[in-house]
């Protein structure tokens, strides 16, 4: 299936902005896991109530890298409140849209940014989260991948286009 990325996505993918880490970051956000295919880290520096600097590191597909780059551009210079209001949809729109099966990548960007801001507040409140131990790995075995219809809860074949019991179309983990 062709992905058909927009020009903006390709530009941000090929020339990503704000790649890297901030060694004395005020907040760090990390979301994703290798099973989904994407991991994103966001580092922010806060000056007063504004994001004065922001950098990212991402393991992921073209869309994930473009989303990471775009969200750092969008958040830079914004107040923390404004940055918290940047939604997944805003990122996708700013990128000129994403292919339907890549829309979930835009969730990653906003989630990572919001998680970095929360981390900043937590640190300020004295609750320092240690990322490496606090991180949850969502790795399941093949046996755990049995598929159930969300409407009638019957066991269905993996990747079924629709449920043969109730006839409803089956949404899949990564199709949305």
């Amino acid at each position, binding site marked *: *299936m062709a992905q058909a990325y927009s020009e903006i996505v390709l530009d941000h*993918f*090929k020339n990503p902005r704000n790649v890297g880490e901030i060694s004395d970051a005020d907040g760090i956000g990390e979301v994703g896991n290798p*099973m989904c295919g*994407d991991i*994103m880290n966001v580092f922010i520096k806060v000056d007063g109530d504004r994001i004065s600097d922001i950098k990212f*590191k991402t*393991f992921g597909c073209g869309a994930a890298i473009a989303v990471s780059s775009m969200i750092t551009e969008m958040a830079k210079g914004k107040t923390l409140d404004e940055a918290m209001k940047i939604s997944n949809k805003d990122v996708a729109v700013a990128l000129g849209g994403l292919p339907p099966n890549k829309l979930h990548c835009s969730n990653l960007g906003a989630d990572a940014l919001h998680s970095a801001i929360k981390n900043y507040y937590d640190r300020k409140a004295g609750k320092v989260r240690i990322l490496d131990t606090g991180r949850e790995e969502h*790795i399941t075995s093949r046996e755990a991948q049995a598929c159930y219809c969300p409407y009638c809860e019957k066991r269905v074949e993996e990747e079924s286009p629709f449920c043969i019991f109730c006839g409803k179309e089956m949404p899949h983990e990564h199709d949305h």
Partner: protein
Amino acid sequence: MGLIFLDHLAGTPLHPKVKEAMIHHMETVFGNPSSDHQIGQPAAQALEKARGQVAVLINAQPQEIIFNSGGTEGNNHAIKGVAIGMREKGRHIIASNIEHKSVLNSLRTLRLLDYKVTSLDVDHYGLVDPAAVEKAITSDTILISIQLANNEIGTLEPIVDIAKIAQKHKVIMHTDAVAATGIIPVDVKELGVNLLSLAANQFYGPPGTGALYVRKGTPVWPLLDGGVQEGKRRAGTENLISIVGMGAAAEMARLEMPERLPRLKAMKERLAKGLLERIPEIRVNGHPTRCLPHLLSVSVEYVEGESLMLMMDDDDVVVATRSACASGSLRASHVLIGTGLDFATAQGTLVFTLGKDNTDADIDRVLEIMPGVVQNLRNMSPLYKKAH
């Protein structure tokens, strides 16, 4: 430097002789092979000529070749056709975990119809153990379907041994030989199989055209019901222009194979060796010797395959992340996970499939640009820093 195409598994360009044969056919013949009049007869002759050309490529009889729309149809037909044809004898089928989606999803459909499926694990090279196949056979088993060559990692399965076991237990043996036929010598008698799927776009023929070899006497019910075309096994007016192209492609594959094979092997070796030398923390997937001569699958640690593919594409090197059929799904490849690779490493996989028109200069260009692309993505990757 122009575009370097290294994704021949997704489809090959037409061989000039194939194009020539198809154009000649288009200009001279338009009849329906089923018509007994003087317009139909040249069409029937063209169809039978192509059938003969494909039969010779795999050492079959012409009447054992059923033309169809490609590998997916051949696999669907073999599996569902035997399931229906043998339904009074049994309802159990054996396959492996790393079969092509057209096999796995045909089995998915049969499970809905109360057939039982045993899907066998493979080892780290992707090899199926013939002893495990024999152990899985029950009195209810009607079919074993194991691919000849895996389309993602290139591993060649021990089909000769498995077919012997099938024969011993009077079970029908199908092999999906799409990735192998036209590339390496494929001989249905030597393999000992009852059914074998092949596709023209793997050997410089037109896409959307293939064939199923059905050994005489194999009970395969039609997948498409209708008229008496293709020996009553595949109804519908034949896709004759493409079939003529497939015939010519089969002939060229047979004639040129002795020249193509050593060149492909040498280029693949040069590519594998060069990548291993130039890029740290990279692994070659599949079996080191029992493998397709034109396919190289590598997994690059700490980076994701699609971004790697897109960056290479930007430098005019066209490769695949995994089989093109699977690229719409975002899950890690079932084949790579089946061989025991972890999810993160499986995500960083590129599949190079070389073709007859590639040159050493193409390989050198890949070796020149890929290390930089990998390093660029690794510098961006949160997994890389953690490990170093």
